[in-house]
């Protein structure tokens, strides 16, 4: 058994280098496909975190009655917190609201009209963050029934639109990822099939001298695994060298800080290695089948 494995690995190694051109072509294809897969995985991850981020932005704002007492507000806040659809509540006082307004006017380069006012016309508010933008209607309706609430900012349509768009993007992303996966599978299998075909004479000789299926198959499977591992190593090295530009691209494009970049890197190592290994093995297994005993 050990002899057999040693034989298969030795033959795989020899086979890889004796047909260096074919092997390199297969490895290059593998790298290309893995880069495609990894690239799309990065985009998909960025997209998803951007979507999560956007969805977090969806909040329900309840403006509070001017004559509400601090006790009313505290009670309201406690009741909002108790809602299962809610992740967080922030109280914005009248002064904070004014300060924000002034800051945003300044940021937009417009004249601060509030300086002509004697009193602060803005109301205090509760900003309610939701677990899911789909809950906005439920939460808004509940808030409207609160006596201390003057009115609820109607973000229902915005929330619904965001929800629709993010759902479509998520589905599309998954579909495209699957489609790319299938295409990658076909291309890799065909490339390895070519590499195996280049050695069909050798396989024929093995059959004629009475090699068992295992002795014919496993060296090729190990060779496929080698192509996969080399491909994965090259791809990951490339990605590592490009990780800085990729990170800044993600920040620029998705406007998300890649806080999860460490875990994304781990995911990528796992996915690229597993995909390379799996595709290489599967490709060889399928390709060599044709030559085995019928």
């Amino acid at each position, binding site marked *: 058994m050990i*002899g057999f494995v040693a034989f298969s690995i030795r033959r795989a190694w020899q086979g890889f280098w004796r047909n260096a051109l074919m092997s390199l072509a297969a490895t290059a294809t593998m790298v290309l496909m893995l880069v495609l897969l990894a690239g799309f995985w990065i985009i998909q991850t960025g997209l998803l975190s951007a979507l999560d981020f956007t969805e977090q932005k969806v909040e329900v704002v309840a403006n509070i009655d001017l004559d509400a007492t601090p006790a009313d507000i505290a009670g309201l806040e406690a009741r909002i917190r108790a809602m299962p659809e809610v992740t967080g509540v922030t109280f914005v006082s009248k002064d904070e609201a004014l300060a924000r307004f002034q800051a945003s006017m300044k940021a937009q380069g417009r004249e601060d009209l509030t300086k002509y006012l004697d009193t602060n016309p803005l109301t205090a508010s509760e900003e309610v963050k939701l677990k899911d933008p789909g809950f906005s209607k439920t939460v808004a309706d509940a808030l409207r029934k609160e006596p201390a609430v003057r009115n609820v900012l109607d973000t229902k349509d915005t929330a619904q639109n965001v929800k629709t768009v993010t759902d479509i993007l998520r589905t599309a992303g998954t579909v495209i990822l699957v489609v790319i996966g299938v295409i990658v599978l076909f291309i890799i299998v065909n490339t390895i099939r070519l590499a195996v075909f280049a050695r069909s004479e050798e396989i024929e000789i093995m*059959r004629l001298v009475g090699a*068992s299926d295992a002795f014919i198959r496993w060296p090729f499977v190990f060779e496929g695994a080698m192509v996969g591992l080399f491909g994965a190593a090259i791809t990951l090295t490339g990605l590592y060298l490009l990780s800085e530009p990729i990170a800044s691209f993600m920040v620029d494009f998705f406007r998300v800080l890649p806080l999860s970049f460490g875990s994304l890197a781990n995911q990528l190592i796992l996915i690229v290695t597993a995909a390379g290994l799996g595709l290489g093995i599967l490709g060889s297994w399928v390709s060599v089948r044709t030559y085995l*005993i019928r």
Partner: protein
Amino acid sequence: MTITSTPSAASPRSVRERLLRRGREQAQADRAVLVLHDVTKTYPNGKTALQDVDLVIPEGDFVFLVGPSGAGKSTLIKLLIRDELASHGQVVLDGQDLARLPRRAVPKVRRKIGIVFQDFKLLPTKSVWENVAFALEVTGTPRRKIRPAVDRVLALVGLTAQREQVPSQLSGGEQQRTAIARALVHDPRLIIADEPTGNLDPLISWEIIQLLLRINELGVTVMMATHDADVVTALRKRVVALEEGRVIRDEVGGAYHRVD
């Protein structure tokens, strides 16, 4: 065959003789390396390549298989190595019915046959020694047994001096001798040579034939498919002639063409 039941039709002695002869035939069939019984091969495309072929090749025989291209020689060889299965009839190699062989057992049966081709089928990147050793390596032979076995067959075919050369450095005859060494290294019961001299000039052809005869003298059964009329006629060995998938002639000491 039925034994005559009416005593008047045959004397007791002739019945006994027939029984004895039948016993001898049976014993011969038992010792036969290869028995084809009523074999027909029809390919899925409807073409019948072999029809009702009966052939018994006893141990130690030297048989020429002759016939025009497309007569069914290649199909016959494919049946022997169980690359194809007979549509009808039995192919029995060394006592084993190939049709009843489980898939797993096929490689082991193939090791009982050594095949030599017109185009040698050597691996161009391997040396003579490695080409021969390859046949043992891929069948899981332990390494310590490979070396002496390969050295022995290379000595037998006279290629000890060329052991480190690759096929492109060899002459055609040397390449064919390498292929013969590879076919022999498993100690096969039967050597099948498919037009082994087809690519060689007459002088070298004779060398190869002499080598096959010597191997035959060592006790290995040899079946050689050939178009080489001079060789067949000169040697006066057993000749099996195929035409359109049928055995049209099977005679010991025959010539390439039928002598009328």
